[in-house]
C-alpha cells in the first residue's frame, strides 16, 4: 500500500514511469514492439520514452509477434533485459510457442544454466467495443504454464511496483494491463519501490464475505462492496496481484474469517482463473465455508461488438453486488 502518496498518476503514467526508471537504472533494459517508438503505442503508454532512450533501446518492430517475442527470449538469455510489447492480449495467440515452449522452458531444460529475464507486457479487458479479436483476457493460459510468472495490477501504485519487480526478475514474466484502466488515477510515491510477487493485497477489509478480484475486476468488486455496505454486508476485497506465484494463504485465511467467498476475474469463467482460485479456497477453507465459492468470469462467448451484448458478457458492480447478496443470504 502507498506510504507517501504525494501525487496521483494515471495507470499509464505509472507504467511509463516504471519503464523509464528501470531503463535509467539498467542500460540493459530495452523495449520492442509495434509502434512503441514512433507512436508510443496506440494507447500512448510509452510516449516520450524514445525521446529519452533513443531508437537503440525503444525499437519499432514489424507486425511479427512470434518473431520479436522469440527475439526477446534470445536477447534475454544473452545479456539484455527486454520488455516485449504485445499490443492486445488477443495477439498472445501468436506468441504462445515462443512464450511457452521457449521462454518458459529454457531455464529448466538447460538444467538451470540459461536464464530468460524477459517481460512481456500486454493487455486484457473488454467493453471497449472492439469485438471478439481485441477484447480477450487470456491470462489463464500463461498462468497454467510452469516457468512463467504472471502479474496483473489493478492500481497505478501496483502497476509501477509490480512492473519494476517484473523487470528485475530473472524469469519470464507476463504482465497484463487492463486497457480500460489506463486513465485511472491513483497515488504513486516518487521514491523507488517494488512489490514482491506472490503477495496478495487486501484492497478493502471486511468481515462477511471475501471477494477475490483480479485486474479490471478489482474496481468492480470495490464498487460492489460499497453497495453491499449499504445493505449491511461487510465485504473484504483481495487482489492476488500475481496469479503465479499465487498467495494462497492470504486468500484462504480471509475466506476462513468471512466464511463466504467469491472470485471475480475478467477471463472466461471456464477452465480459467476462477476455477483455480475457487478450488484453492474451497480446499483450504473447506471447514469454514458456509456456502459454495461463487465464481464470476466473462460469459462463455466470443466478446460481441454491440454494446448491449458486450455489456452483459462481463461482471459489473451490479451483477457482483447481486451475486454477493445472494451468497450472503440477503436476497
Amino acid at each position: 500500500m502507498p506510504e507517501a502518496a504525494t501525487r496521483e498518476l494515471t495507470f499509464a503514467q505509472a507504467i511509463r514511469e516504471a519503464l523509464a526508471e528501470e531503463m535509467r537504472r539498467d542500460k540493459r533494459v530495452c523495449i520492442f514492439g509495434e509502434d512503441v517508438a514512433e507512436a508510443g503505442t496506440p494507447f500512448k503508454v510509452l510516449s516520450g520514452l524514445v525521446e529519452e532512450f533513443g531508437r537503440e533501446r525503444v525499437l519499432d518492430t514489424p507486425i511479427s509477434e512470434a518473431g520479436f517475442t522469440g527475439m526477446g527470449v534470445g536477447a534475454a538469455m544473452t545479456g539484455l533485459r527486454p520488455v516485449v510489447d504485445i499490443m492486445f492480449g488477443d495477439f498472445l495467440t501468436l506468441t504462445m510457442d515462443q512464450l511457452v515452449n521457449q521462454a518458459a522452458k529454457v531455464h529448466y531444460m538447460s538444467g538451470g544454466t540459461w536464464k530468460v529475464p524477459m517481460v512481456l507486457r500486454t493487455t486484457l479487458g473488454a467493453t471497449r467495443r472492439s469485438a471478439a479479436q481485441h477484447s480477450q483476457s487470456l491470462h489463464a493460459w500463461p498462468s497454467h504454464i510452469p516457468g512463467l510468472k504472471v502479474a496483473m495490477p489493478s492500481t497505478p501504485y501496483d502497476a509501477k511496483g509490480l512492473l519494476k519487480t517484473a523487470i528485475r526478475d530473472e524469469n519470464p514474466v507476463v504482465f497484463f494491463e487492463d486497457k480500460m484502466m489506463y486513465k485511472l488515477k491513483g497515488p504513486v510515491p516518487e521514491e523507488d519501490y517494488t512489490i514482491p510477487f506472490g503477495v496478495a493485497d487486501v484492497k478493502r477489509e471486511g468481515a462477511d464475505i471475501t471477494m477475490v478480484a483480479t485486474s479490471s475486476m478489482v474496481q468492480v468488486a470495490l464498487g460492489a462492496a460499497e453497495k453491499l455496505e449499504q445493505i449491511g454486508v461487510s465485504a473484504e476485497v483481495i487482489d492476488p496481484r500475481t496469479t503465479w506465484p499465487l498467495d494462497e494463504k492470504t486468500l484462504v485465511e480471509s475466506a476462513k474469517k468471512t466464511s463466504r467467498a467469491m472470485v471475480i476475474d475478467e477471463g472466461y469463467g471456464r477452465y480459467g482463473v476462477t476455477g483455480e482460485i475457487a478450488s484453492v479456497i474451497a480446499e483450504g477453507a473447506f471447514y469454514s465455508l458456509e456456502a459454495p465459492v461463487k465464481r464470476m468470469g466473462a460469459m462463455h462467448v466470443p466478446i460481441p461488438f454491440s454494446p448491449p451484448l458486450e455489456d452483459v458478457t462481463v461482471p459489473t458492480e451490479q451483477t457482483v453486488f447481486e451475486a454477493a447478496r445472494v451468497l450472503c443470504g440477503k436476497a
Partner: protein
Amino acid sequence: MTIATEQSKVIDGVKVEQWVRMYRRMVMVREFEENVNELYTRALMPGLAHLYIGEEAVAVGICEALRETDYITSTHRGHGHCLAKGAAPDRMFAELLGKKAGYCKGKGGSMHIADPATGNLGANAIVGGSAGIATGAALSAKRLGTGQVTVCFFGEGALGQGVLYEVMNLAALWKLPVIYVCENNLYNEYTHFSETTAGEMSSRGMAFGVPAESVNGQDVRVVYAAAQRLVERARRGEGPAFLICNTYRYHGHHVGDINREYYRSKQEEQEWKTKRDPIKNYAAWMIENKVADTTKLEEIQKEVHAEMKAAVEFAIAAPYPSPEEAEQDVYA
C-alpha cells in the same frame, strides 16, 4: 444521351456497363466511409473504424474481376472490400452501429463484416489472420471443382506475419486458386513500411513459388486488368498470384487518428489526394474517353449519396439486439 445508355459498348476491351459500375462502386465506398467518419464524430458509432478512403480503386478493381460466387477475405480496413464484393450499405451501417439488422447481427462490428451471399468469408482484425482462411477456401474450390477463386486482401503490414508465407508456399505447391492482394498504403499503423520490410516486396511472392506483380493501386483500370488476368489464370488451375497494389489512405489509421504529422507530412497527404485520387482521375478518363459524361457521373454521385443517407438512417433507426442474444451463435 447515347453514351450512358450504350452499356454494352466496349471501350479498352471492357463493357461500358462495367466501367460505369466501377465508378459507382468507388463512389459508394467513398461516400460510405465519409458517413462512417461522421457517425464517429457524432458519437453515434461505438468503437473505432479504419477508413478505406483513397484506396477505393484496389477493392473495386479487384472485385470487378470476380464472380459473385468467388470468395474474398478482408481486413480491419475492410468496408471497401465488402462493398465492392456486393454488400448492402444499410446492413453494413447497421453492423457498424451494433444493430440486429447488421450482417453479423451486431456481433461483429466494423472489423468483422461477413456475408455468405456475396462470398465474403469475413473481415479479420488479426493482421494476416485471414491468409489461412483464404487459402483453405481455395483448397475447397479446387477439391470440389467449383471453379471459384479466392482473393485474400491484406495491408503491407501483414508481410510481417509468418503465416502468410506458410500458406503462400502451400498454395504454390498445391496450385490453389487464390490471389494474395497486398494493399501497400505505406504505413503499418504509424510506422512506415520501409522500417518494417527488408528486401524487395515483390520477391516475397516468388520466394514461395507465387508469381508477383506490382501495380498502381490508384488506377482502377490498371488494377482491374491485372486482377482479371490473374484471376482467370487461377481459375484455369494455374495457381496462385501475389499482387501488390500501391495506394494510400487519406485519413488516419483509424477514425480517431487525427494529428498525423508526427509520422507523415501534410504535404505527402496532399500530394496523393490532389494528384493521384483514384476517383477524380478515373472520372477524367471516363469523360475523355466518352465512357460517361459529367452529367452521368454527377447523377451517379447523387444517387449514391442518397442511397447512403437512407442506409445510415436505416441503421440509426434499427433496433439493437436484445441482451439474451449474446449467448446465441456460439455453436452451430
